[in-house]
């Protein structure tokens, strides 16, 4: 049943390709309908899933028998959480691209192809299949940014595509080696994970696969695609990039690299945790000095994704749970912030320079945007009551047990995070009040209904998870109960 999230998206792509180009309304409707249907299926899948049932098979049929590759879709608590996130992000992204007027049907076709690929990655338990979906998602990203993007779009798009492709090339090397070493008779993740690869091989295979995936998660120092890509992308694409594509990387690192190569993980754990913390602090510091509104959010994504990677490296129950929750939470919050910057502010003022925005008194001109950004900002800086708080707190507790020194450094990252958010809120929206500047001469277009609905969905989600985290925590925790994932906990310090 959950497999329909993938199929619906690709059916949507096919329908969009066949639509006449002039019919923009129909294109939007098809896209929104596909995304909503996907979200509905995702919800149904979550409700149908019995907690504690481990990895529930959806379908498992031979695909390429001569290489024993199977079309194996399944779901556990972790994938369900991320499928849910994808569903929400897809719907909201479409609401925020309602104003796209050029090449509408192509835009949504690429958009849905990307969504379909992302669903596929989260649901695949055959590594070949997972890799197919993972690479499938690269090309739509390129076109979404190169065609509909803004600043430096062709450069940003190419950089993102090449970084992703290099990452997936590294993953491919590791996967082929693992497949051959294990006797070349299965690509099934669960089966492969049972095989214990020689230690010497794991020592280099783990970094290959882990870093290959983590490039997409914005692991420092391979993060440089993220700010440029996010800034160049159109609003919906940056929401998806930060919201779900970066999670693809983190998910792959967790699901594939960490489960297949436990000895490699043990050897490289400290290094990667340190890189993650560098990412947290560095991302926050750089965000603090940006002049471009969108770059602030771009670098903040690098910083927050650092928490995901740090949480993964703790190998404690609380840290891993926190990491997955952080994936969800950051997907929602980053989506919200990018929506404000890209759609609500940039599409109206046509500038993202903080210094120019200062003079516009935006809190008066578009109060809803200011309100949304304040909520998003508070959630992003980790205020209790929002999902970010629950997630980052758990990661920090986990990190404190595993790497106390790094936990303290990561704490610094949080403090800097508060600083850049406050600075940005103040510069972008509220400085006009002090300067008592009149609102810009030509009034800005008011915030439209789709934007309000989209923002409301995201704000409600982060608030809901923040106030009642158990909703998701049970699901995530059950993901770490299956034998495949439970092995991770044995590697950590108690």
């Amino acid at each position, binding site marked *: 049943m959950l497999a329909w999230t993938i199929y619906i998206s690709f059916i949507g792509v096919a329908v969009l390709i066949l639509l006449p180009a002039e019919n923009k309304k129909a294109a939007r409707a098809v896209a929104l309908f596909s995304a909503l249907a996907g979200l509905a299926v995702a919800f149904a899948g979550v409700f149908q899933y019995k907690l504690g049932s481990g990895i529930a098979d959806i379908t498992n049929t031979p695909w*390429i028998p001569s290489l024993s590759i199977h079309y194996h879709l399944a779901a556990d608590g972790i994938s369900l959480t991320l499928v849910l996130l994808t569903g929400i992000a897809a719907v909201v992204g479409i609401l925020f691209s309602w104003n796209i007027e050029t090449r509408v049907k192509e835009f949504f076709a690429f958009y849905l192809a990307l969504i379909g690929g992302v669903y596929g990655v989260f649901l695949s338990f055959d590594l070949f299949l997972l890799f197919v979906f993972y690479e499938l998602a690269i090309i739509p990203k390129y076109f979404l940014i190169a065609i509909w993007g803004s600043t430096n779009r062709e450069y940003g798009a190419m950089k993102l595509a090449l970084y992703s492709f290099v990452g997936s090339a590294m993953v491919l090397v590791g996967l082929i080696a693992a497949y051959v070493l294990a006797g070349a008779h299965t690509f099934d993740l669960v089966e492969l994970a049972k095989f214990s690869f020689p230690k010497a091989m794991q020592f280099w295979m783990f970094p290959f696969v882990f870093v290959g995936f983590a490039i997409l998660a914005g692991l420092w120092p391979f993060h440089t695609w993220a700010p440029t890509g996010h800034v160049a992308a159109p609003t919906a694409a940056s929401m998806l990039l930060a919201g779900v594509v970066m999670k693809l990387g983190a998910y792959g690192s967790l699901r594939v690299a960490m489960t297949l190569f436990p000895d490699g993980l043990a050897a490289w754990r400290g290094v990667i945790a340190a890189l993650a913390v560098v990412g947290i602090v560095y991302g926050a510091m750089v965000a603090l000095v940006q002049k471009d509104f969108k770059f602030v959010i771009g670098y903040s994504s690098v910083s927050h994704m650092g928490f995901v990677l740090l949480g993964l490296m703790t190998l404690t129950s609380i840290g891993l749970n926190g990491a997955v929750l952080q994936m969800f939470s950051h997907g929602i919050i980053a989506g919200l912030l990018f929506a404000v910057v890209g759609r609500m502010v940039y599409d109206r003022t046509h500038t993202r320079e903080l210094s120019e925005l200062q003079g516009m008194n935006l809190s008066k001109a578009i109060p809803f945007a200011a309100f949304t950004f304040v909520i998003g900002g508070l959630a992003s800086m980790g205020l209790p009551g929002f999902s970010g708080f629950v997630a980052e707190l758990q990661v920090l507790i986990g990190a404190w047990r595993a790497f106390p020194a790094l936990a303290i450094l990561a704490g610094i990252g949080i403090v800097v995070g508060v600083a850049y958010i406050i600075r940005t809120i103040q510069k972008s929206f509220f400085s006009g009040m002090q300067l008592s500047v009149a609102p810009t001469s030509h009034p800005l277009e008011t915030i439209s209904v789709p934007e309000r609905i989209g923002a409301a969905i995201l704000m409600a989600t982060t608030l809901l998870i923040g106030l009642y985290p158990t909703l998701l925590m049970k699901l995530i925790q059950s993901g770490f109960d299956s034998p495949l994932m439970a092995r991770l906990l044995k590697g950590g310090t108690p």
Partner: protein
Amino acid sequence: MNYFDLLILVVPETLIVVTAFVALIVDLAEMRSRPIKTRMFTAAMITSVGCMVSLYWLSQTGQPSRYFDGMLVIDPLTQLLKQIVLVMTIFTALISIESKFTDHVGEYFFLILLATVGMMFLVSSENLLMIFVALELLSLSLYILTAFNKQNIKSAEAALKYFLFGGMSAAFMLFGLSLVYGLSGEINLIQIAGNLHKPPMDPLLIVALVMVMIGFGFKIAAVPFHLWAPDAYQGAPTPSAAFIASGSKVASFFILAKVMMVGFLGQEGSGAWRSFSQGWLPLIAIIAAASILLGNLAAIAQTSVRRLLAYSAIAQAGYILIGLLANNQQGIESLVFYTTTYALTVLGAFGVVNIVQERSGEEKFSAFAGLAKRAPLLSFCMMIFMLSLAGIPPLAGFFGKFYLFASAVGAGKSLGLLWLVIFAIAMSAVSLYYYLQVLKQIYVSAAPADAPAVQSTILTRTIIALLAFSVLLLGCVPNLLLDRIIIPAVKAVVSHP
């Protein structure tokens, strides 16, 4: 055996020769006064029908057997290769319809069919003499096909370059083959392998091996014997270039694999990391690595789509050689699968280039600007072809590469070829850059205001769409070709050598 039996055995080839004459005569006798388009169409149809009849005959496979000291080998694998070659010829003929570079229509198709006969004999031979003769028949036809556009000086230049390089490399090859004959006293591949001394290799044999490799390296456009390729791909009439890049590649790779794996059985040596030992494996490993490196890097700098395809072909030759390096059954399967899908992809890409070039007069990147608006279907097909060449799933190029690499890594002990596979995968990440440059022109750049409309006939569009569809289909369901067709054929040959 009398001549009638022999005729029965070579009915497929004979049919093609007959078709060639029919195409020639019909055009000369009946069509001279008609418009070129009609003549092209008629000749292409005659060619296709002839090839299809031959295809049908081939599908009724006779008993596997060898005749005349390996000059003619009939087994499921050679029959399969002939069928693949014929399919490529049919597609080449069909995408030619849009062109009007010559009024010697009959001769043009005559040469294409003659080259096809050369390929068919080439793949079904295990005899050095026959291999050389068939290879020359193929090459000579291709030289003329390259020079066929007499209005274009580039065409003449390309053909001259191609011919001079080809003649030179043929001489090397012949010399190498004569050394092999001298060392083994045989011209049949199987017996050669039996008569050659076991390693360590005779120094003379090393010389022979290198010289043979020069000859084949030229045919498959591998570094450092690739210099003719960019000019030939650019200067030759588009259908000729497509033909050189597709059918001829399939046949050449197959016979190279056969000569190495059968003729030099026991002289493999090793190309594994830090344990190189002399033989043909390290030789090919070096050529493969050099081709992948140079092809991919040089392609980045190109601004002409056809030159880009040429350099990409050089890189692809390197990938295909990795399948040969696996030197096992899987390696052959992956080699046949990849060359076939690659040939389909390149034919499609040249089909699109052909149409654009016919309408706008050039094939620089700028001629493709904004093609997505002007010809949505062709653009979409071009996207599929380019992404398949780059190895993006779920297209055939991805699975083909994956299979090549997996079989090479799995060959031998302790992942010896992993170094080359890592290198190839890393360089294929580079290749995405230049393939995306083409797609960027098509989808991202705006068309200039005076850009000519890109019309094409329904037939051509259908052919190109069919090629794109098959690339997509073979990527999604590779076992249609692999498990059903290639693997049984290879197994049948390997189990009854």
